[in-house]
């Protein structure tokens, strides 16, 4: 587990996850009756649950559940830049995605690894185009995302959670940013894949030239009738499949967008009522 980590309690030198010892029975992408494992049709996304104000001391915070993927995001409002960094007119966005050790089937070491760094960088790119940066010169916004459980569509969930938390922190944004993921598996497009499907697709051998891949999009549905802020695509997909996939993703983002707008509006109404009754 890397160098001896002196700041955490150490277990035995070598310990292997028991899943390696389990007999790997032949697993298929689809369930028995050729529908998806969790009995969803190819296009409809998983169940979404959103809530705001989870962290009391954060300027803005949100908690998002996409099926089993659970993500919590805290935004710490425009604060002055650390000493020593030079002056710039636009605001600096600092993103950090942290995955809890128990968030995947195989325990991840709590020390930061490549995937988390890469995801932080991608989230930073997505958010830098969303926040109106020159509204906060000489300042810095910290966005911390904690992944409690990863069951597929992680980057999309992080983007949606960050978008909600930014709005809750009432930081000026062009529009509420939403993330969505689609997956191709031998020609068929599946929306909102689970971790199992992603894993299965990732292990697929590409030599036979069969179509397959995954597309994650972060977009702002309403601003200037739809702007894509981030597009990450892996695997081999033909051009027209990609365009068709993009339409499906835009349509999914639209539906999530309505849901998150509803949550935000409800939250505002609820806090208004609270102000009234403790004001009266």
């Amino acid at each position, binding site marked *: 587990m890397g160098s001896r980590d002196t*700041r955490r309690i150490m*277990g035995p030198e070598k310990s292997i996850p*028991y*899943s390696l010892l*389990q007999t790997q029975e032949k697993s298929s992408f689809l369930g028995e009756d050729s529908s998806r494992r969790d009995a969803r049709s190819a296009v409809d996304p998983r169940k979404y649950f959103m809530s705001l104000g989870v*962290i009391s001391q954060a300027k803005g915070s949100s908690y998002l559940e996409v099926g089993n993927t659970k993500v919590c995001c805290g935004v710490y409002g425009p604060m002055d830049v650390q000493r020593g960094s030079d002056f710039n007119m636009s605001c600096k966005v600092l993103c950090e995605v942290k995955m809890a050790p*128990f968030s995947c089937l195989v325990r991840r070491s709590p020390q930061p690894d490549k995937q988390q760094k890469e995801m932080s960088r991608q989230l930073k790119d997505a958010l830098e185009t969303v926040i109106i940066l020159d509204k906060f010169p000489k300042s810095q916004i910290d966005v911390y995302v904690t992944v*409690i459980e990863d069951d597929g569509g992680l980057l999309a969930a992080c983007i949606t959670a960050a978008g909600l938390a930014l709005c809750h922190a009432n930081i000026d944004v062009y529009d509420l940013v939403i993330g969505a993921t689609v997956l191709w598996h031998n020609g068929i497009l599946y929306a909102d894949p689970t971790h199992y499907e992603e894993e299965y697709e990732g292990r697929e051998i590409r030599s036979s030239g069969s179509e397959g891949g995954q597309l994650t999009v972060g977009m702002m549905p309403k601003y200037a009738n739809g702007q894509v802020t981030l597009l990450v695509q892996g695997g081999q997909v033909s051009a027209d499949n990609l365009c068709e996939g993009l339409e499906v993703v835009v349509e999914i983002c639209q539906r999530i967008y309505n849901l998150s707008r509803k949550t935000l509006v409800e939250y505002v109404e609820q806090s208004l009522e609270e102000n009234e009754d403790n004001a009266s």
Partner: protein
Amino acid sequence: MTSLETWKTFEPESYYKSFLEKNKRPDGRGLMKVRPITIKIGTVTTAEGSSTVRVGHTTVMCGIKAEIATPALRNPDEGFIVPNVELYPCSSPKIKMGPPGEKAMGTSQFLKNVLHSSGVLDLKDLCIVPNKLAWCLYCDVACINYDGNLYDAALTAIMAALQNVRLPVVSYDAENDKTSVASERTLPLMIKLMDPTAEDESQGSGEVVVVLLENGSLCTTHKPGGQLILPNILDDFVKLAKKRVKVVNNLIDRVLTERMDTS
């Protein structure tokens, strides 16, 4: 900034003193009253055992991942239990990115002491085949919202998660040294019903943590410096903790029984 906050930032002492005179706390609680606790079990499907505990605003999630390891030479028939606390920067402005700070390390060490001295889990039960195979339980406590009282929340979370752990059956045949692990997780852990509860009181500069077992015996006290206190104050803490032990334990049992009949 409302006038209250300006007062708080400029003269913190007088702000807190005004509350202490009426022996209240800024969030309206009496000095001795404890924050409401809510416990949920099995909240993370990827972990063998998991729990979410909210003590007032402090929200803590504990996930237990089991792995197989060879037992240490010194005690060949014992498994491992490795508690660790991760204080994520998202939980409070005071916590910075980077390796665990003093607070996180102190709490991890505290949890290790409690688990070791309370004898809640006998490490021998974790052993599958002496000096060959043993379970190693990584109990990671992730703090989502840090608002003080981390000791109590973390300990309750681990206790609840330990009782929610389900391990697969492991069979090992000696000749061809092959271990096979059943696919579903069935086997619960043998928890000796003495789950400890921490009662910690932090008044401004000092904090006292008293951990009590169900039969009222004291399993860990931890007072790292801070305010000088008279010995009899320690007894008040012990009485206070006794009251709370019952409250928290039947809360965990209730949640466990609900879990039993649903699953």
